[in-house]
């Protein structure tokens, strides 16, 4: 059952590779999205036993993120055929096959409870997403892919070294070395502290690079700026969250070893620093796709800040993982429509999106309000939960800095977004521009927005219970 979540998308990728028709092939994506969502629902509804001696387990944290990626992939893949139809001049064989492979490897990350296997899956996800960034070709895409591959591979290599250090901390304690999560949590109190600290630094830097935390975020603006919007949504909502999950899994081991407070302070500092860096670079940003990349840096910072604060903030952080991912879906897909309509992604060539492509313009504007934490959208609830937890923990300096930075981000991002949606469109062929808005390219973005709105107004009790269960990261030794 669990294995099907990995193998079915991979086999579909192989099918995509052999289908000869450029016109039919993109329809494999919605099919893959439906199948993956169905398998995910089945796996959640019918709790399956762990497989391969505990290598593949679906725990509550995995269930939460897997369920979310099911929705993300489903809606993004509904968008894909409409997009690829408008980009018929580009061959899509590798693009479609890599997207489907990306789904399979992502599921493997979420299911694996062996840190080595998880590393293999995360590196495979990086490799399958690299060709996706190169879809538009040209020197700028090349530069983005090269940086993405090199920075990502080196970062993740450090994470592998960290995983080995972790296993060594057990070896030093005369325990049989193991990279199975359950073994490490059980043996937590006995693990050798110096090796554990070194492992934490390497793993946090390594997986933090994949998450795009500042100052390891340098690949992100280039990658998101040059990739198709669809890929941006999948990376910002899918891959970065998987890297966050890897850090959370490791945090559990650390707290079992009684070292959680050391990790917490590092996470609070790294989180605030990421939000600050994003705020600085978002101000006066002329390229609205790069702006979205910095917004992703900011929200990754909020996620680790929440975990660093502990208590109820962990709940807020996991809720924010979903809210941020869904809102990024709205923003990246609507930005992609605007990008195609204006054939420009800088403010020089893009004004008056609301008049030229009204639906996408409106979605982009509403997505901006949602992501910056305006009520009644979901991110408001999750950010407010984190703030509330910080206040009740008496961390007033953190609260002050966090609020200040949120205002800075709001103003910086608002200036760019308003310049895109307001004003008069430049003199371009209007009918051609309007044709970029079809039902298939607008409906998925609108569906993302509706979900974000629903989560802001009402959190279903089963979901809340699941997040509460997943938020129990602390293990008392």
């Amino acid at each position, binding site marked *: 059952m669990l294995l099907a979540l990995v193998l079915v998308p991979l086999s579909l990728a192989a099918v995509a590779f052999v289908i000869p028709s450029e016109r039919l092939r993109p329809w494999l994506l919605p099919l893959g999205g439906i199948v993956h969502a169905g398998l995910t629902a089945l796996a959640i509804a019918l709790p399956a036993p762990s497989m391969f001696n505990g290598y593949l387990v679906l725990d509550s944290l995995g269930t939460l993120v897997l369920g979310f990626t099911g929705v993300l992939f489903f809606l993004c893949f509904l968008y894909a055929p409409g997009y690829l139809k408008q980009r018929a001049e580009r061959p899509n064989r590798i693009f479609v096959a890599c997207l489907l492979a990306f789904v399979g490897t992502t599921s493997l990350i979420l299911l694996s409870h062996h840190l080595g*296997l998880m590393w*293999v899956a995360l590196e*495979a996800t990086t*490799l399958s997403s690299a060709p996706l960034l190169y879809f538009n070709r040209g020197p700028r895409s*090349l530069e983005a892919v090269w940086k993405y*591959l*090199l920075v990502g591979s080196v970062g993740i290599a450090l994470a592998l070294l960290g995983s080995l250090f972790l296993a060594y901390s057990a070896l030093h304690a005369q325990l049989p070395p193991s990279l199975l999560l359950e073994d490490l949590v059980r043996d937590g109190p006995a693990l050798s502290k110096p090796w554990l600290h070194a492992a934490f630094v390497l793993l946090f830097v390594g997986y933090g690079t994949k998450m795009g935390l500042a100052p390891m975020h340098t690949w992100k603006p280039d990658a998101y700026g040059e990739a198709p919007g669809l890929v941006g949504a999948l990376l910002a909502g899918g891959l970065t969250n998987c890297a966050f999950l890897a850090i959370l899994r490791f945090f559990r081991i650390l707290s079992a070893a009684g070292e959680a407070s050391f990790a917490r302070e590092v996470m609070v500092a790294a989180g605030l620093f990421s939000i600050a860096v994003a705020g600085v670079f978002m101000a006066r940003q002329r390229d609205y796709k790069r702006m979205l990349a910095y917004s992703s840096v900011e929200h990754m910072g909020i996620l680790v800040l929440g975990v660093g604060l502990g208590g109820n903030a962990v709940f807020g952080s996991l809720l924010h993982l979903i809210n941020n991912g869904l809102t990024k879906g709205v923003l990246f897909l609507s930005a992609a429509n605007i990008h195609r309509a204006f054939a420009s992604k800088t403010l020089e060539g893009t004004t008056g999106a609301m008049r030229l492509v009204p639906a996408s313009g409106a979605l982009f504007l509403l997505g901006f309000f949602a992501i910056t934490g305006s009520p009644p959208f979901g991110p408001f609830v999750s950010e407010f939960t984190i703030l509330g937890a910080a206040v009740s923990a008496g961390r007033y300096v953190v609260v002050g800095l966090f609020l200040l930075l949120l205002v800075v981000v709001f103003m910086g991002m608002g200036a760019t977004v308003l310049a895109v949606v307001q004003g008069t469109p430049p003199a371009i062929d209007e009918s051609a521009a309007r044709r970029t808005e079809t039902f298939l390219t607008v409906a998925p973005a609108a569906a993302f927005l509706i979900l974000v709105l629903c989560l802001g107004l009402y959190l279903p009790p089963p979901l809340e219970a699941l997040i509460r269960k997943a938020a129990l990261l602390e293990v008392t030794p």
Partner: protein
Amino acid sequence: MAASILVIVLLLNFFVLGTSRLRTVINASAAQGVALGVLALLVHPRIDVETVLVAVGATGIKGLVIPWMLHRAMRDAAIRREVEPLIGFVPSLLLCAVGTGAALVFSSTLPLAPQHQGSLLVPASLATVLTGFLVLTTRRKAINQVVGYLVLENGIYIMGLTLLEAMPFLVEIGVLLDLFVAIFVMGIILNQINREFGSMDTARLSALKE
């Protein structure tokens, strides 16, 4: 025996940094890969089919397949054969020496398991990782950065040799396969970079910035 192979690995680190011919740099990284394959057989307490498969796989991929791909990329690109470092050869050798010394000192402060007391595995691993970083950051040619990444992975592989029981067969094969695919994808992109820019100089990859 294992110690002398680790010394060879450390000397190859200096060789990778100190040579001006790109072909020799690739060959040095290949030699390092072969040495690691032999080392894997030596440190294993017992030799079984899986051990031999991993050792042969590592030797084949790190020592033969990847160097062959890099040599081919070089020939296709018809690039100039000099390395063009950002900092000179003597300073980079000095940095490597400092790094190796620091690795030795640092690993003597780490608490080692009894079976690794006095063994060179941990310091050699850290020194090789540092060398990989040095190559990655101070060389301008894209193909040279790939070699840096390879050396970095070699360093991690040495660390993995201290933990043979923690890494099951399939995961080890998975790590090797990931490395192979990574270099394969990098090779394709190298080729595209060369076609697009007429050179593999990463200094030309500077259009995207704030």
